[in-house]
């Protein structure tokens, strides 16, 4: 517990003293505010926008929640840059404790942010129970993005590019709602496809089980694989 508190305090300090990271903490809230106040106004002008509410929320929730994945990945990149990973490995803590802590932190922050987003944006609200299920998947997107960036980016510039690349892959499945002619199979390996389907199903009142369980499984498989890659390529070297 004490170690957890030490790590969290450390991360809060790191974020508070970094202009970029501080900015990225605020971004998700700006996004939520934008949806909450701009969309009703736009809807008055273009009433047909109502049919796009679920899609707007699918997009907003993923953008808001992965910011915390981005922040944790930058904390890790900083530590990688400054040669801190070896010193963290000679601390008297179980190997892996530190990475798992980081991933949980990002995941928990993203989960909370997704919940806040779905509740306060004021559109396409699926109810509390369903929004928790959705937020679990949105929360899992953060550790995924953290691991990709921290494993494959050599520095922050590459980290930014990597983040944008993964972000693009994450929002790509939205196309399946827009262009019916693209075969659905293309999107199946992308975990957000399942999250977006889950969102759609919870709005139109379909059964959620399939999308929730398969989606969660896809997230967990990818996270497990990338966790191994991160340890092999970065942490244990």
């Amino acid at each position: 517990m004490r170690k957890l508190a030490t790590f969290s305090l450390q991360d809060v300090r790191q974020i508070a003293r970094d202009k970029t990271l501080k900015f990225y903490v605020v971004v998700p809230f700006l996004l939520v505010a934008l949806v909450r106040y701009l969309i009703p106004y736009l809807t008055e002008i273009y009433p047909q926008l109502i049919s796009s509410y679920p899609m707007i929320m699918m997009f907003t929730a993923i953008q808001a929640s992965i910011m915390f994945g981005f922040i944790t990945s930058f904390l890790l990149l900083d530590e990688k840059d400054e040669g801190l990973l070896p010193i963290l490995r000679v601390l008297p803590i179980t190997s892996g404790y530190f990475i798992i802590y980081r991933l949980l932190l990002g995941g928990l922050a993203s989960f909370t942010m997704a919940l806040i987003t779905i509740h306060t944006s004021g559109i396409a609200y699926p109810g509390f129970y369903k929004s928790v299920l959705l937020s679990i998947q949105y929360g899992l997107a953060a550790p995924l993005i953290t691991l990709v960036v921290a494993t494959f980016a050599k520095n922050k510039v590459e980290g930014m590019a990597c983040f944008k690349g993964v972000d693009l892959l994450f929002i790509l499945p939205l196309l399946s709602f827009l262009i019916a002619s693209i075969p659905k199979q293309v999107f199946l390996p992308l975990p957000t496809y399942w999250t977006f389907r889950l969102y759609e199903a919870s709005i139109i009142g379909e059964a959620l089980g399939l999308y929730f369980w398969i989606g969660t499984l896809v997230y967990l498989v990818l996270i497990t694989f990338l966790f191994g890659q991160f340890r092999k390529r970065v942490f244990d070297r």
Partner: protein
Amino acid sequence: MISVQNLSYKYPSADIQALSTVDFNIERGEIFGFLGPNGSGKTTTQKVLFKLLTGYDGQAQIDGVEARDWDESLYQRIGVSFELPNHYLKLTALENLNFFGAFYPRQLDPLEVLEMVDLKEDANRRVADFSKGMKMRLNFARSFLHDPEVLFLDEPTSGLDPVNAKTVKNIILELKSRGKTIFLTTHQMYDADELCDRVAFIVEGHIKACDAPKNLKLKYGKSSVEVQLAHGSGKSVFDIQDLGNNVEFLAFIKSAEVETIHSKEASLDDIFLSVTGKSLV
């Protein structure tokens, strides 16, 4: 305290062995040094011992337990100072020490430790504003903050000016006087000479000699006398052994007026060169 036998290690990405059949022992309370040029395997040996590198062949034991069998409790008993500075740059020196100290059951007073390495005035400055030498001293300070029994110091004086190097060396000697076992690496013979109870000469992953600096000098070093004759009549070097019976020497000093005579002690540098065939720099 530390026992290494037949240790070999190859980096997965390399085609040659970084260490081959390395043997040495470090007694409790001893300062043991690895002296060798860059790339000779000093850092690699230390990293094997504290488990940053796995998959070695041979034996590498700390306190009778093989490195691979130690769990994380090893890290309460050892302190590590890495070759390159690694700190949270956005935090102050004191915040850095407080952070790392929080992982141990007991620690020294961080401010006192900072005072020892002459960083007390800078305790509340961010490490990003530190010079390389200051960061190195902070590395060193962190290694003994939790009062470990064994210290691994990788090039503890590199990048330090003579005054700060002296400070660090004095602390190392003080840690020894408090019973700590210290394994340090260096490529500077003065450090090895001043600090180490025993040094090992390491070249290309292999130990070529291992003994007290004094014994190495006795065994391999020849002290000599350099004679300079006046008016440019010549200069010559003679072995100091049995000098009074050295006919050539006696003839030489009679041949012209002597301007200077200097005796020269063999330095560890010279001995290193003659034992290993490699120069230290």
